[in-house]
Every structure is written in structure tokens, then in C-alpha cells.
């Protein structure tokens, strides 16, 4: 089971976790002030495990992944905290070293495969290029590797498809090609940023199956960023729910779904349409996410939380709750678990 305990700073490197993120924060300076996109994220991940990061748009999911990939280096973003990947801190690692990890040890799949693939190069060239960066090989060997990889991701007649351009591919095929590109160097960690969002529903399941299958083959770790709770339930071992750049709830997937502890996660689950529900309308969470320029002093979800009054003394509005972890299941709420249990049963 994935370890999802926020570790104390004292136990720095000794834990030896495969990926250990501690107090990761990302801030962007803008003309209006500092935008706090990610605020103190903590999580860890082992090989062979899948972590789902869920949250609505602007909750900091993608920024977290870009910080892990080091894609924010060289921009105005201020990244602080630690992200230990096999003992190396991705936050402080210089760009030149980071570049060696990218593609080889950490692969990434993006949301929209059409815009993520270069329109002027053939699909095969782009995959072979990813192979050539990290391997000493001839062009011919790179081509063979790319063709092989195209076959492994389920693209028919890969030898011919190698020489075609992204615009010749269908959406699903493009995402398969992206997966081939990300996995050609067999990275130990794969970050997939909404890999199925831009795809047809029928294709989504195929892509998810493919990713799980390849993950098992290579025993790699997978971070799946999504706003689709159905996807999470299908493929993730553990889940991290983000809101306003913070982790509000984290834990094993079953616990998140069946022993939900945070009012925001409850709201998310309630807003999901189900096949057998008789309701004709969706149940959105009322209100807007907080401005990342000016986060509230108290709990960042308090303004939209139905249960803020229950905690008493206006504590939700005045004090920001810490992440309390019990048995691998963390939540950031002033309400105690008994209160939450009552709420869940009465909804």
C-alpha cells in the first residue's frame, strides 16, 4: 500500500521512499501579487503504485506535476520544499541534472496529445528523438526501438505509422503515441496529467488499461492527475484530493470513496452523476474556489463548506486546520471524525 504519511522533516533521507514530497509549495509572482498555486504538499509514492491527484481546475494539480518534472525551472515560479526522487531533491537539482532525469527516469504524458506533439515532425521521429537523448544508439536503432514501442502501445502496423504526422492520427492513437514517447526509456516514474480528458469516452478506458498494463510490466510508479473520480476509482491505489493548492484529504482509494473524511471530498462525490440516481440535476458545490492571490486565513474551503458552523467558535474561518493522519488516511478539517460520520449518514 502506498505510504501517504506526511513525514516529519527530521526523518529526511532515511525513509528511502521512491518519491517523497515534503512541504512542496509553488508561488508565481504576478503584477497583482504572489499567486500561491501549491501550498505545502506532502505525499510519498512507491514503485508499482498509482497515486491519483484529484481536484477542480486551478487547484494546483498540474503545477504540482510540473514542479516535479522541473519544468518550472527557468521560469519566474518560486518552488520551495522538497521532492526526493530516489534520494535526489528535484526542487534543488540543477537544470542540467534534471534534464538527464526527464524522459529517462521520469516520463510525462499530457492532456491534449494533438498540441503536445510537434506538428512538423513525424510521430516516429519524435519518439525516436526521446530514445536518442538518453541512449547511445544509431538512428536505425532508435527507429527500431520507436517502432517496437509503437507496437507495444497498440498502434497497428507501427512500421508505416512511424512515418506519419500527428495530424494523420486519431485522438486515441495520438495519446498512445504520447505514451510510447514517455515510456520509451522505461522511466521509473510516470506522471500523467489528465491523459484521458481530451479523449472520447470509449477511448478513455483503453488508454487507462494500456497505462496500467505498461505500468505493471515495468513496475513503475504512476501519478495520475485527473478531475475524473471514476478514473481514480478504476486505476489508483491511493488518492490525494487537492483544493486551493492544498491537499485536503489523502489516503487509500477505498477509504477516500467509502470513508470520506473531508467535506470537500464529500461534495465532489455528491456532485458526481450516477447511473441509477433519479435526480435530474447535478449537485454542484456552491460558490467559487478561493483566489490564490489572497487565500483566506482559516480553512480554505470554509467559505463553501456547509458544515463550517458545526465546528463552533468560527474556528473554520480563523484557523487553518493541519493535515491529521490516522491509519494512512489524512484529512484537513476542524470537524472530528464522528461529526463527519454523522454528516455522511444524514446526507
Amino acid at each position, binding site marked *: 500500500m502506498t505510504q501517504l504519511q506526511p513525514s516529519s522533516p527530521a526523518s529526511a533521507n532515511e525513509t528511502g521512499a521512491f518519491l517523497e514530497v515534503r512541504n512542496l509549495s509553488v508561488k508565481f509572482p504576478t503584477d497583482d501579487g504572489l499567486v500561491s498555486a501549491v501550498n505545502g504538499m506532502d505525499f510519498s509514492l512507491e514503485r508499482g503504485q498509482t497515486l491519483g491527484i484529484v481536484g477542480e481546475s486551478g487547484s494546483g494539480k498540474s503545477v504540482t506535476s510540473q514542479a516535479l518534472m522541473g519544468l518550472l525551472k527557468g521560469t519566474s515560479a518560486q518552488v520551495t520544499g522538497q521532492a526526493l526522487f530516489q534520494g535526489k531533491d528535484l526542487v534543488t537539482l540543477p537544470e542540467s541534472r534534471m534534464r538527464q532525469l526527464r524522459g529517462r527516469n521520469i516520463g510525462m504524458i499530457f492532456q491534449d496529445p494533438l498540441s503536445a506533439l510537434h506538428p512538423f515532425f513525424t510521430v516516429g521521429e519524435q519518439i525516436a528523438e526521446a530514445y536518442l537523448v538518453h541512449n547511445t544508439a544509431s538512428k536505425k536503432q532508435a527507429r527500431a526501438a520507436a517502432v517496437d514501442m509503437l507496437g507495444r502501445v497498440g498502434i497497428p502496423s507501427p512500421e508505416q505509422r512511424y512515418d506519419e*504526422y500527428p495530424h494523420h492520427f486519431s485522438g486515441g492513437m495520438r495519446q498512445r503515441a504520447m505514451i510510447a514517447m514517455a515510456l520509451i526509456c522505461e522511466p521509473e516514474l510516470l506522471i500523467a496529467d489528465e491523459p484521458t480528458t481530451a479523449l472520447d469516452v470509449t477511448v478513455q478506458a483503453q488508454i487507462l488499461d494500456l497505462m496500467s498494463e505498461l505500468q505493471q510490466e515495468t513496475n513503475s510508479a504512476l501519478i495520475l492527475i485527473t478531475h475524473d473520480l471514476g478514473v481514480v476509482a478504476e486505476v489508483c491505489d491511493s488518492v490525494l484530493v487537492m483544493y486551493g493548492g492544498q491537499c485536503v484529504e489523502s489516503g487509500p482509494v477505498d477509504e477516500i470513496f467509502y470513508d470520506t473524511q473531508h467535506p470537500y471530498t464529500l461534495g465532489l462525490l455528491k456532485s458526481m452523476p450516477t447511473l441509477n440516481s433519479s435526480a435530474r440535476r447535478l449537485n454542484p458545490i456552491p460558490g467559487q474556489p478561493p483566489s490564490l492571490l489572497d487565500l483566506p486565513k482559516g480553512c480554505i474551503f470554509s467559505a463553501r463548506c456547509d458544515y463550517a458552523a458545526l465546528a463552533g467558535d468560527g474556528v473554520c474561518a480563523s484557523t487553518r486546520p493541519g493535515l491529521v493522519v490516522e491509519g494512512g488516511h489524512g484529512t484537513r478539517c476542524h470537524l472530528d471524525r464522528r461529526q463527519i460520520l454523522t454528516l455522511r449518514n444524514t446526507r
Partner: protein
Amino acid sequence: MTRFIFRRAGSLILLLVTVSFITFTLFQLGPADPASAACGQECTPERITEARVALGMDHPFLIQYLDYMRGLVSPRMIGAPGAESICQWPCLGKSFQTNENVSDIIARSLPYTLSIAVGALVLWTISGVGLGLLAALRKGSATDKFIVGAASVGVSLPIPVTGLFLLLVFVNQLHLLPFTTNEINGAFGPHGPWAWVLNYFLPWVALAVLFSAAYIRVTRTNMIETFSEDFIRTARAKGLAPRIVTFKHGVRAGITPVVTMLGMDIGLLLGGAVLTEQIFSVPGLGFTAVRAAISGDLPVTMAITMLAAFFVIVANVAVDLAYAAIDPRVRLQ
């Protein structure tokens, strides 16, 4: 591909006919009276009539036009009855002023215009694209602001200002460069390439200051946009070196609008850099065209106008072909 070429050739001919007809018509409507100009100082009505016949201007307007156009496909006779001379194909007529074959005049002027165009083009493309790319890579820095500022100054400097200023400083005051001479009209002439460069350097700079400003701005804007594209992020995520991300993935995608601009500008410039040729006294197409228009020399004006239109159209086709070479999405089936 064959269909593409045929279609383009067809529209080329159609456009040339249109351009020639409009020029011809405008000339008839204008105040120019070539016959009395050719007749000279002591002119009698009889001599004017003679001149009209000699220039072929006694025929109705449409016949004159058709006569002229016929010369483009076959040789024709030109001159007063009894004193006619043959004008070999392609016959662009004879100058009303000097009675010289227009094709000879063009052949003599074109090398000067080419000399100016080629060098200026290379200079402004390198400086425009280079500085634009630098500004895009250093977006928001002092370098960026300086380049953008310089570009807005450059674009507001007309050729007569820059040209005369350059002449004053580098030729008149510092004596670093020679004044342009008509003896050099190509890099491979008897004077050698170096003399050619020195001779045309100032016209190149004057044009480059004006033109590179636009190239800087277009390159900068497009490169900034391209660098924020998803495929650039993908290239970085592969672990590619910044140099490869910038040049192989970035520039190739961001440069297409510059290719369009370049094609249009080449076409325009080959038709004659009128102001530059005037300021630097270079007897190229632009210079010749201005003189012809002032003196009512219809055949020369017609020929240069059509040549300019021809260059613009050919440049358009070249841009389309270049696009297909760069971007596989527009490649012809």
C-alpha cells in the same frame, strides 16, 4: 503538384494581363503626351502627327494595347512607316525617349536592383530574425526592451532620412565608404565581391534598418507564442537540451510567418527599391521607372510595372512552396 503549377501559372497570366491593362489605361488618362515630348523644341503640328504615327499612337486605344501585348508572344515591327525596325521577341516595345529596346533597358537596370535587394535581404533577415529571437528568449529583460525600442525607432525612419544620414556620416564625414558608383552592378564583376559589398553597403543598411524592425516584432511575437506551446513543454519533458528545444522544435514552428513576410518583401523589392535607388543614385528598376513615368515613356513604365507584378506573384508561389516544405499539414496531396 502539376495541377498546382498549372493553376498558379494560369492566374499569373491573368494577373499580368490585368496589371498591364490597368497601367495602359492609366497612362492614357494621364497628362503625359509622349508625341510632343519626342517631337522636341521646334515642333509643328505636322511633326507631332508624324511622331504620333512613329510611336504607334495614331491607332485607337484598344488597338495600341493589343499591338503591345502581341509583342509579348511574337516579334513585331515598330516605328514610322518606311522607317520600321524589327523588335525581337519578347518585344516590350521601344523607349519613347531613347528608341532603345525596352528589354535592353530592363536587362541593364535589373542587376543594380538585384544587387540592392540581395544584400539588403540577407542583412535584414539575419538582424531581424536574430534580434527578434534574442528578444523572445530574454522576454521581459532589459535586452528585450532595448531591442523592441530600437525596432520602433527603426520602423519610423524613412529611407530618405536614414539614407542621407548614412551618406553624410560614412561617406562625407568619415570617408569610410565610397559613394555608390554605377560601374559595379554585381558581385562577380571585374571589381570583385568586396568592392560590390562596399558599394552597396549603405543602401543595404538603410533598407535593413527599415525592414528588420518589422521582422524583429513578428519574430519576437511568434517565438514567444511558440515557446509557450504544449509541444515545447513535451520537448523539454523528453530531456532535450535547451538549444535543441529552441532551434529544432521552437524556431521551425515559429518562423512560418516570417517566411510569408520575406516572400512578399522579396517580390516587392525586386520590382525596384524606388526611394533607395533615388537617394543613392543607383540606376536600378525603381530609378528607371520613376524617370520613365515622369517623361511619359509608356513602354518602359509598362515593362517595369509588369515585371514588378511578375516578381510579386512568383514570390507568392515560392512562399506557398516553402510553407509546404516547412509544415507537413499543408503539404500537397
